[in-house]
């Protein structure tokens, strides 16, 4: 199987051909040749005259609906949505019902890998209840490299410190979405002017920052009591930063040398609190959209390396829980299919030349997987993008759930092809 991409503009910043037009030849899933002009007999030739080549997306945060939520997303729709968005690797949160919490369940998820690779995140506690530990070593042995408290933050401080203590001996990552539940209880949107104007209970920035401060303090405590036996690859990953103060806290922690990393959801980089002013439930997310200053700080955090990755925070929600009153509606948006186009558009508006560190190389490093650089001998993977304006409609969404924050938004970048090894899909 030989596939040739003719005259494609390389926008993978780690490639020696960055910002140059070249031909790419893949053979049996491996890059065979990269050169300004290749003439060779192939099975498929793709004319890429006005197309750009990006590395595929590695998504560190996808809400898993399985088992129990097949009506929101199933394996087939998840894979299709991922490929539509150029996402070829994803970490799945332990958010199924019942929660996948046995070694076999973790292996089962990892074994679903075909065109898309799945990395199961294991739950810290049974049924995500925050009461009793799961068998953490056993789950790690079964293949779990990341652990979390469902999609949120473990509220019990004692249990959290013990999870950190227990896991720090392993080469694993504990991921948390910072939240102090007592402060965010019943909250609907960012606590600010907009929540006041809309009569909705706010979710204060403090709910997030207090949680980060707590976890960083717990990490310091655990590190100073590790008998020198802490695993060098152990990490605390803070997911879905939403405000300026959180970025500052992570920046400081990294400067201090703490083993921390962080990500931000793509929608936080695009929307602010004022975007929910019309009670659009498809923009109801947690953490909520905050202020313009917060959004600017998140971009700054990406540019200076404080934030390591951009995630989709893909969260399928059935229409029955979105097409209702705002305060009754579920949180979450689908995002696998729009992460890359949305990011490319937003980055262009901010004059940012390269985004691949945040969607590919950064997350690859965190997940400990091969970042598949565009070089001869490496696996042939990547995404073809065209510059074209097109309005995004529900009918285009491949995911079973249509709760996209981008409905009726006009994207200026469109994914037109996705290559994963020998598997090429064009749109």
């Amino acid at each position, binding site marked *: 199987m030989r596939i040739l991409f003719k005259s494609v503009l390389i926008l993978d910043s780690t490639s020696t051909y960055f910002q140059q037009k070249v031909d790419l030849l893949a053979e049996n899933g491996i890059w065979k040749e990269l050169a300004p002009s290749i003439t060779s007999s192939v099975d498929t030739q793709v004319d890429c005259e006005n197309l750009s080549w990006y590395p595929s997306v590695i998504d560190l945060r996808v809400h898993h609906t399985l088992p129990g939520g097949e009506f929101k997303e199933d394996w087939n729709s998840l894979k299709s949505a991922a490929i539509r968005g150029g996402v070829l690797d994803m970490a799945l949160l332990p958010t199924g019902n019942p929660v996948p919490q046995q070694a076999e369940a973790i292996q089962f998820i990892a074994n679903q890998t075909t065109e898309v690779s799945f990395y199961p995140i294991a739950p810290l506690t049974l049924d995500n209840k925050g009461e009793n530990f799961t068998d953490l070593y056993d789950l790690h042995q079964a293949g779990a490299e990341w652990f979390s408290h469902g999609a949120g933050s473990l509220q019990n401080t004692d249990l959290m410190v013990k999870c950190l203590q227990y896991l720090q001996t392993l080469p694993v990552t504990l991921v948390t979405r910072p939240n102090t539940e007592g402060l965010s*209880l*019943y909250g609907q949107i960012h*606590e*600010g*002017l907009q*929540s*006041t*104007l*809309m*009569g*909705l*209970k*706010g979710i204060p920035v403090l709910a997030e920052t207090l949680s980060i401060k707590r976890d960083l303090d717990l990490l310091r405590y655990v590190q100073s009591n590790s008998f020198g036996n802490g695993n060098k690859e152990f990490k605390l990953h803070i997911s879905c930063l939403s405000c300026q103060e959180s970025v500052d806290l992570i920046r400081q922690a990294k400067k201090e040398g703490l083993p921390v990393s962080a990500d931000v959801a793509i929608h936080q980089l695009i929307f602010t609190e004022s975007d929910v002013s*019309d*009670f659009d*439930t498809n923009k109801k997310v947690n953490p909520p959209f905050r202020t313009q200053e917060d959004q600017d700080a998140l971009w700054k955090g990406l540019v200076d390396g404080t934030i390591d990755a951009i995630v989709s925070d893909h969260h399928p929600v059935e229409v*029955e829980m979105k*097409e*209702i*009153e*705002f*305060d*009754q509606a579920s949180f979450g948006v689908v995002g696998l299919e729009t992460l890359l186009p949305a990011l490319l558009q937003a980055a262009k508006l901010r004059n940012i030349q390269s985004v691949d560190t945040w969607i590919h190389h950064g997350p690859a490093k965190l997940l400990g997987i091969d970042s598949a650089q565009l070089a001869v001998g490496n696996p042939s993977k990547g995404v073809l993008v065209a510059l074209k304006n097109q309005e995004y409609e529900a009918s285009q969404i491949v995911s079973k759930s249509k709760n996209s924050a981008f409905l009726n938004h006009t994207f200026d970048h469109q994914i037109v092809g996705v290559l994963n090894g020998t598997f090429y899909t064009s749109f």
Partner: protein
Amino acid sequence: MLKSPHLLGIKDLDAESIDLIVKTAKEFKEVLNRPIKKVPSLRDVTIANVFFENSTRTRLSFELAEKRLSADTINFSASGSSVKKGETLLDTVNNILAMKVDMIVMRHASPGAPHYLSKHIKANIINAGDGTHEHPTQALLDTFSLREKLGDLAGKKIAIIGDILHSRVALSNIYALKKQGAQVRLCGPSTLIPKHIQSLGVEVSHDVKETLAWCDAANVLRIQLERQQIKYFPSLREYAQFFGITRKMLDELPKEIVLMHPGPINRGVELSSDAADSPHSIILDQVENGVAIRMAVLYLLASRA
């Protein structure tokens, strides 16, 4: 003519529209004081009063306004959220609309519920209170009542006292009063004042006596215990002691002020009985004006069609 086919809130209403509604209400108030109180303005217009939250005075006031305008009315009441019932809000309203209803008067516990409906249905929607968001007809009748007492509200000092955080009356009144150039001061326990409310150009105080001395009129709000999902202050006893208004406090003021309350009053909590029944109080005038204001709103929205 009103610019929008709906009355969802005061936020999007301009001063000109407020003037138009109050002027029209004044005319309807005259009608209400005639021996024959009914006019044929809304004959053949069908209005559904859809109340997803308990209401006595607002529902009666709307119903009476509709009857005085000769509209055909139907009433739907259900407590609790639509989700709990198993039928969505949109389904419920579409069922009602299938019976060829022209206007919907809706009260709902969820902020933004009428805004959500307005995106999905064609009928005119009047917000009769949406959770802790807005209660536009209450603010309009308060404006009407205040103007009767104080004239033009520009520069007038109006205090809103009580549970601001959970009050749709407060937010709608702030919008209405600011659009008319009034000075607005909010007063209540610090936990019941929304954090960012000062961005709306209002002052905040936690001293009731001092606020009463400052204002020309005080709109006293009830403690919305039913909307408080968590504790905000120690007890009603303590609230009454430190934020309740008594006749004695009113009598000690250097000038006469106007006392308002959107009802129902928690007697002995935010207002003592002798304060509520004092000559300062225009609480029953507010109720009377409510019918005229609602007639004006219904008439003006129907005449857009």
